[in-house]
């Protein structure tokens, strides 16, 4: 019996996951634990290991295609074994058109032996026992209804036929519609350099949408390149996830913001001393540690709500917003309250590295109770952050900048870092937020708190 390989559920909300790459070829031997294939989830590209040993005898879902969770994507078996026939569980089932010409074919199946009687009036053989009107059958979603000839003309003309109104049966775009469109848009007068046209054809740029900057409005290669750069590209799964989750947060969570300035002078000094002794703590490590302490003192902030009830979390699972070239992920330091500063440093460093490499595991990407977004290294004076859905607050940490401040009646320049807490007003009120940010501030300014830890 061939062993089916199923699509695992790895992400938080993945119902359908695309296979990015197969790491084994058909016929290749697979050992238990070998990486079989890679899938893309909302947060990362993940490697899927085999639980079974055998030979890869069939790939049901090839790279580049998506399959629902628990769908069979491949079979392992013995050499020469035949894999069972399985239709790939496509995300979009393809519906075939019913056939049947004007003069019709013979019945493909005779459902009713009396069909000759029932259709005797016309004396004709029915085209199919249950005739399907072509119009009643939906096309594949997103497929443009256009004749091959019209498509070829559009393609040869370097235009996008998508917006053209079709006059053919069922609204099909036919050749004359494309010609009318070209005429209406003054295609004849369009001037374009041969190189630009070749590039447009190759890259399928609609030259009617390009503004020419050459002599007399002639479309040049640079114009096509500009259009290409501006051309919408599909959002990555990660960006789609960011968009969905943060939009949800902004729409459903009443945010308010409280900012305080933290004098980092003493702490920076302490860090320099520690560094001189070989302990390489980052400013972030202290901020995280301060947050953990403050959260333990203020369980209201370490909580979440669904709008109906509130849930206080006994542990601090600290989310660390981490930037990647293609977006943003929030790896989670679990049970952060149990970690020493040194352990926290190690955990944060490892997570950040794995996040940058796209190697985070799903469980490392979910379940945070509070998030810190640190833009200290990005030279910002102050900013606000959007609360991660399921949390009550997020701390936005800005850069530490030399700032004139009043101290004992004098203006002095101190390294000041602004931190802004965004809070969910359903859970946290102003006074609570103020106490909480000031608790963090106090901890960061009181180096006695840290001297023992480092």
């Amino acid at each position: 019996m061939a062993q089916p390989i199923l699509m695992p559920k790895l992400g938080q909300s993945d119902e359908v996951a695309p296979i990015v790459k197969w790491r084994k070829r058909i016929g290749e031997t697979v050992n238990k634990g070998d990486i079989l294939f890679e899938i893309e989830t909302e947060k990362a590209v993940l490697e899927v290991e085999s639980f079974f040993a055998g030979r890869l005898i069939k790939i049901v879902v090839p790279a580049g295609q998506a399959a629902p969770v628990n769908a069979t994507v491949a079979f392992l078996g013995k050499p020469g074994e035949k894999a069972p026939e399985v239709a790939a569980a496509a995300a979009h089932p393809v519906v075939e058109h019913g056939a049947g010409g004007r003069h019709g074919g013979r019945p493909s199946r005779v459902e009713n032996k009396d069909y000759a009687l029932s259709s005797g009036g016309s004396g004709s053989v029915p085209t199919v026992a249950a005739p399907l009107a072509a119009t009643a059958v939906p096309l594949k979603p997103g497929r443009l209804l256009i004749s091959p000839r019209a498509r070829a003309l559009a393609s040869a003309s370097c235009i996008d036929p998508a917006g053209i109104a079709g006059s053919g049966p069922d609204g099909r775009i036919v050749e004359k519609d494309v010609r009318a469109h070209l005429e209406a848009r003054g295609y004849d007068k369009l001037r374009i350099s041969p190189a630009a046209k070749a590039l447009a054809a190759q890259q399928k740029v609609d030259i009617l949408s390009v503004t020419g900057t050459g002599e007399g409005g002639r479309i040049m290669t640079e114009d096509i390149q500009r259009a290409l750069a501006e051309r919408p590209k599909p959002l990555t799964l990660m960006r789609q996830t960011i968009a969905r989750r943060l939009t949800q947060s902004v729409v459903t969570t009443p945010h308010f913001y409280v900012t305080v300035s933290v004098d980092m002078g003493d702490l920076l000094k302490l860090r320099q001393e520690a560094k001189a002794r070989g302990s390489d703590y980052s400013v972030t490590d202290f901020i995280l540690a301060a947050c953990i302490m403050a959260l333990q003192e203020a369980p209201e902030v370490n909580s979440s709500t669904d709008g109906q009830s509130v849930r206080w979390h006994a542990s601090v699972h600290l989310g660390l917003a981490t930037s990647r070239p293609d977006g943003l992920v929030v790896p989670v330091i679990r049970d952060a309250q149990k970690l020493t500063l040194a352990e926290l440093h190690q955990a944060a460093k490892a997570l950040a590295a794995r996040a940058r490499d796209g190697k985070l595991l799903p469980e490392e990407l979910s379940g945070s109770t509070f998030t810190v977004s640190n833009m200290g290294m990005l030279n910002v004076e102050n900013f606000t952050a959007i609360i991660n859905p399921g949390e009550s607050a997020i701390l936005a940490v800005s850069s530490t900048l030399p700032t004139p401040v009043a101290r004992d009646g004098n203006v002095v320049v101190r390294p000041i870092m602004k931190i802004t807490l965004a809070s969910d007003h359903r859970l946290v009120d102003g006074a609570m937020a103020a106490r909480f940010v000031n608790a963090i501030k106090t901890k960061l300014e009181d180096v006695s708190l840290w001297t023992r830890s480092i």
Partner: protein
Amino acid sequence: MPNHLNDLRPDFTKRKISCGSIPAYRFEATLADELAARHITKREAVNLLEDMLIVREFEEMIVKLRSGAYPACAGFEYRGPTHVSIGQEACSVGACSGIAAEDYITSTHRGHGDSVAKGCVAIRQMNAAALRSRVPDATGTPGEICEAALEDHIFRTAAELFGKEDGYCKGRGGSMHIADFSVGHLGANAIVGGGVPIATGAAWACRYLRNGRVAVSFAGDGAYSNGVVLESLNWAAQHQFTNMLAKGHSYGLPMIFAIQNNHYGMTGRADNEVAGVEFLARRAAGFDDRNMHAEVVNGMDVLAVREAMQRAAALCREGRGPCLLELSTYRYYGHSLSDPRNEYRTREEETAWKEVDPLERYTREIVAARALTRKGVEALVEKVQARNARAAARAAKALEPKPADVLKYLYSDLTSAVVPAEFQKVEIVREKPAITRTNGQLTYRDALKEALLEEMLRDNRVVVYGEDVAEYGGAFKVTKGLLEAFGRERIFNSPISEAAICSTAVGSAMLGLRPVIELMYMDFALMSGDAIGNQAAKWHYMSGAKAEIAMVIRASVGGGKGYGGQHSQTLESVFAHIPGLYVVYPATPRDAKGLLKTAIRDNNPILFVESQLLYMTKGEVPEDPEFTIPLGLAEVKREGKDISFVVWGPALQDALKAADELAGDGVEAEVVDLRSLIPLDMATVLRSVRKTGKVVVGSQCVTTGSFMGEVIANIQHDAFDALDAPIQRVGARDTIAPQSHVLESAFLPNAADFVAAARAIL
């Protein structure tokens, strides 16, 4: 005067009809007697034994190959039929030795013996030049070269069975379709009875060519229940070949029906079961007042077979054919090696027949006659075994045909572009039919007649026959006047035997004639299904291009006249599906003439379809006798840019009318007439489709499964991006042509259908 008017008066005089008598087993001589009477030389006597030994050794090889027990071909796997004729050697060898080397045979699926024997006999009679052409590399004495040619013959026969390029038919035919035209072997035939009408046609060609040759059809008892064989018996015995209609050439068909009665069809028993006569020779009495000079012969006695065959051949050469010989023999093995025989006959029966084994019997005779000593016989056996083994081993190792050549030899590239001088001589017996133009125009009917007339004048190998084509001029008068011009030698009425009409044409084409036969209604072509589909279409390929089947089958479509289901069919799609045939269907007088002339000059078997709806249509037709139209060239009959009608046959008229009507809407329709389905000119169609983007394919064929679908498949494949709308089909409705005028109008497509189909996509 070629025309003959019957004057048959009623005669109901009381009488008894005598069927005469048929001699059986009249030959009683021994070899010693024959030698003494100088009916045979010692050399010939030994050759008979050697040939029977070769045949048996060859077939025993097939049996052994199946179990890997033939050491010379160790490791070679034989894939193919195992229809061995072991036990029947005296029939094959006796018969082939009783006719001349240049005489013709056809054989059967159990034909290894016939093929081997015909070759051996012919090779032994060949002169030095002929032998050299068979084995150019052989050296030595004439005897040694003959020996090399015999071994080469066994090699080519085995190679054909093994499907090798060196086989007689280049591996395209195999055991059941082996042929060697160089020795007059016109082919074994896997259709029971299929070879009999071919031999009959060859015999007719011998008569026509006056070449003094004879054609022999070998066929079993099973075949003599087959319709086309009975048609052939009737065909061969026609009075018109010998009575006053034959004028100065009273000459019966030089045809010998050699029944190899081994008493079993596949397993069906001729005796007591599937026939009503004890002796199949009685069949002769049913077809010929003279019983065809029939005889029943001991088919286990090679000398008896030889003697009867010599007598029959001599009669044939005197113009007293046809003859029928029933050779009673026995098949030791079953139908094939998978047949255990015990389900339908006793072991005792087999033992009894083996006791009269032809080889053992003749060996005894040859020793008794001192033509050979026992030792001499043993040496001969060893020589035969060694020669066969060498030939078979070479055949097993011979080259396989190349897969890329799978289509090679399907069609002939040859034409009768140059008519040899001896065939240019044409006699006009009375007068040519007058074909007059009105304003330069001819009817479709006269255009066809002019084509026939010109081609018959050009080449006397062109002969015309079919039902009622002579005095009456054919049911549709296309051949009217040709009898008066050329006489009954070149145009004659055939019996109503559509299968024999077509298959005899195959046989006469194999001898180099160029028959143009008429089937009257196309519906009747289904009566000739085997002749057209299995014989005419296939012999060029199955013979490895050794045979040229230059023949034209004219068939007329009756649709549209209220003639009902069996006289109205448009069946060209059926025949276009059979590889090896060309299918041509002109729709204008000009095309009718140009295409028929080309078809007659072409060396391929061509189904030439005419329509009765078109016979009276008129059009300009060139008078030039060299005017021809190439096959496989569609023609744009009307130019347009908005939509293409791709049609053939009478649908052309409908499409042109539709184009006229659409012109009123400002639509310019282009009309492409395919003119021939095979070969198919897609280039012209695609040019039109690329121009217009919209296509209606139409014909009078019943829609489902018709050739229209093939055209459409090609269009969508080769011009998909040129299509601006789904391709439309306008054919006849999927039903049987009704008699009722009202219903037939609804059944057949018309101009309005084309207009509607066009408007649906314009």
